[in-house]
C-alpha cells in the first residue's frame, strides 16, 4: 500500500507528540534544583522528595481513592444506562443518550461552577464525596459510549436464544450479555479512572481545603514553587496511565484469544 505521508514526516509528528513526555521524564531524573533541560546530571532525588512528602502522598492517595470510587459507580451506572438505552424506542433513545452524554459537550468549567453552587448548598464542598459524585457524572458518558459500541456488535437474538433454552432473564444477563459486553465495560472503566484521576477544573472548585487531589496539588505547586518534584510526579502519572492502558489491551486480547483457541481435544 502506498502511504499518504512519507515515513520521515510521520516520524516527526510522532516525536512532536511524544516530546513533552520525553522532556518531563528527563527532567524528573535531574540533579538540578530547578526545571532545566537537558538535566546537568542524573539523580533520583526528586522521586525521594515525592515519596517522603506527606503533602504529595496524601493528595495521591485521595486521587486514587476518588478514582476507584468513580470507576465503581460510573461503570455500574454507565453499563446499566447503556443496556437501558439500547432497549428504548428510537426517538426516546436519542433524547436520553443525548442527556447522558451532555457532560462531554458542556464546557467543564460550566459543569464545575454548576456543581460548586449545588454542592455548597449542602455543605459538600471540600469533602471527597463531592469529587466522587462530580467525577462520576463526567465519567459515565465514557462508559455509556464504550458499552453501547460493544452492544451494537452483539446479535440481539443471542438473548432470545438463551431465554428459549430456559435461562431466566437474570441468568441470561449474567451468562450471556455481561460476558459479551465485558471488553466494552473494561475500556469504559479505564476511561472513567483516567477521567477522574486527571481531572483538575472541577477539583479546583470542589476540593476546598479538605479534599486536595493530586492534579490540584500539582497545579498549586506550579503556581508557588517550581521544582523538579512535579516532573517526577508527572512521570509517575504517565507510567500509571500507560500501565493501565496496556493492561486493558492485554485483557481484551486474552479474552479474544480464549474464543479462538483451538483445543487439542478437537480432531
Amino acid at each position, binding site marked *: 500500500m502506498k502511504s499518504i505521508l512519507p515515513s520521515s514526516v510521520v516520524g516527526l509528528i510522532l516525536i512532536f507528540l511524544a516530546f513533552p513526555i520525553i522532556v518531563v521524564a528527563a527532567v524528573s531524573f535531574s540533579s538540578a534544583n530547578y526545571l532545566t533541560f537537558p538535566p546537568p546530571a542524573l539523580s533520583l532525588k526528586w522521586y525521594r522528595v515525592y515519596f517522603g512528602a506527606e503533602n504529595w502522598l496524601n493528595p495521591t492517595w485521595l486521587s486514587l481513592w476518588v478514582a476507584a470510587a468513580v470507576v465503581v459507580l460510573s461503570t455500574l451506572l454507565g453499563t446499566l444506562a447503556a443496556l437501558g438505552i439500547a432497549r428504548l424506542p428510537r426517538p426516546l433513545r436519542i433524547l436520553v443518550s443525548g442527556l447522558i452524554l451532555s457532560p462531554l459537550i458542556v464546557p467543564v468549567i460550566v459543569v464545575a461552577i454548576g456543581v460548586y453552587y449545588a454542592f455548597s448548598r449542602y455543605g459538600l464542598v471540600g469533602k471527597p464525596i463531592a469529587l466522587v459524585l462530580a467525577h462520576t457524572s463526567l465519567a459515565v458518558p465514557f462508559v455509556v459510549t464504550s458499552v453501547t459500541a460493544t452492544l451494537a456488535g452483539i446479535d440481539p*437474538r443471542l438473548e*432470545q*436464544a438463551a431465554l*428459549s433454552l430456559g435461562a431466566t*432473564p437474570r441468568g441470561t444477563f449474567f451468562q*450471556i450479555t455481561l460476558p459479551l459486553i465485558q471488553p466494552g465495560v473494561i475500556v469504559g472503566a479505564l476511561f472513567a479512572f483516567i477521567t477522574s484521576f486527571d481531572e483538575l477544573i472541577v477539583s479546583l472548585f470542589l476540593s476546598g481545603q479538605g479534599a486536595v487531589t493530586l492534579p490540584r496539588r500539582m497545579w498549586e505547586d506550579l503556581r508557588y514553587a517550581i521544582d523538579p518534584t512535579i516532573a517526577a510526579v508527572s512521570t509517575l502519572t504517565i507510567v500509571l496511565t500507560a500501565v493501565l492502558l496496556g493492561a486493558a489491551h492485554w485483557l481484551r486480547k486474552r479474552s479474544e484469544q480464549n*474464543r*479462538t483457541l483451538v483445543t487439542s*481435544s478437537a480432531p
Partner: protein
Amino acid sequence: MAPGVRDTVSSTGSGASVSLAGLEKSYERVGAVNGVSLDIRSGEFLTLLGPSGSGKTTTLMMIAGFEQPTKGDIAIDGTSVVAMPPHKRNIGMVFQNYALFPHLTVAENIGFPLKQRGVAKAERAKLVGEALELVHLPGYGGRYPRQLSGGQQQRVALARAIVFKPRLLLMDEPLGALDKQLRENLQLEMRRLHADLGITFIYVTHDQEEALTMSDRIAVMNEGLVSQVGSPEDLYDRPCNRFVAGFIGESNFLPATVKGLEGDIVIAECQGAVIRATCPSRPSSGSTVTLTTRPERLRFADTLNGSAQSMNRMAVTVTEAVFAGERCRYMLKAADGTMIVLKEPSSAAIRRRTVGEHAEIAWSVADTILV
C-alpha cells in the same frame, strides 16, 4: 425410518400439539398477523410458508413467547401459554443466524439449556456427547463456534435446541444462509431427526421447494392470514386460491366462464374451448373464474396416443421455444393473447416445435383447477 415417509409421525406420542386460535398481532411495520387459526398435531412437521412480510415469523415468535399477541390464544397440549414467559415454555428454537453463544465452546453451548435446568455436570457431558453424535459432530465439543463452518454451526444450534428434549421445536429459516448443496443435505437430516425424535416441528421458510420436501403439512401464509393448509401434494395439485397456485410452483392462469356442473366437474368456456375442471367451491353458472394448470402437466396433443376422454384441449400458437436440457420450455399464445407456459420432458424422439407454429395442447381434467 427413511426420510420422506410422512404418515407415521402421528403414531408417536411424544410431540406437543399446538393450537392457534384467532391469533392477531398488529404492527406499524410489516409482518402483522391478522387472525391465524391453526391446529398442529402432536409429532407433526408443519411448515409456515409465505413471502417476507406475510406474518410467518411473527407467528413463530408469538409461539416462542418473544412477541405478545394483540388478540387470540396459543395453547400447547391444551394449555394456554400466552401469559407464560419464553424461558418457561420449554420450546426448542433454531434461529436463522444460528445464534450460538460466541464466548462459549460447542459443548458449553449445547450444555447451556441443561445447566439452566440444574443437570449435574457428568450427566450434562454425557447428554452433550449424545447430541453431538446425533448431528454428526462428535469430538467438536472443545471448539468455539467461529471455528466451525456455517453448516456445522447450524448442526450445533440444532443439537442445542433438542438436547433438553423439548416436545416442540421451532425453526426460523434455519437453512437460509447456507448454499444449495448443504441446504439439501441438512433438509434430509432434519427429516431424519424429526422421524427419530418424534417431536413436533414448526418450520418457517419462504422457500417453497424446501417446504414441499420436508413437511407433513404446509400452512401457506399471505398478508397475515393462512391462505391454505394441507399436505404438499394437496397444495400443489389442488390449490384453493390464486395466491397458493402462484406461490407454490409455477402456474398458468386463464380467465374462464362457468357454463354448468356435471357432478364434481365444472364445465367452463376458456379461449373458445370447452374445459372440464375440478373446483374447490361450486361456482354458479355464468360466473367468471380463473383456470389454473401446471406447465409440466400440459402436452402437445399430437404426442399423446389415442384420444383420452379425460383431457382438455386448446388451440395455441408457439411464440418461444427454449431447450433447457432435461426439458423444453415453450411459450404459447392462446386465442385472446394470454400466454401459457408448457414444459415438455426432452427426448430425441419428440419433435421440437418452431416459433409461429400452430398447435393443440392437451392436459388432464384432474390437473385443471378453477379458483
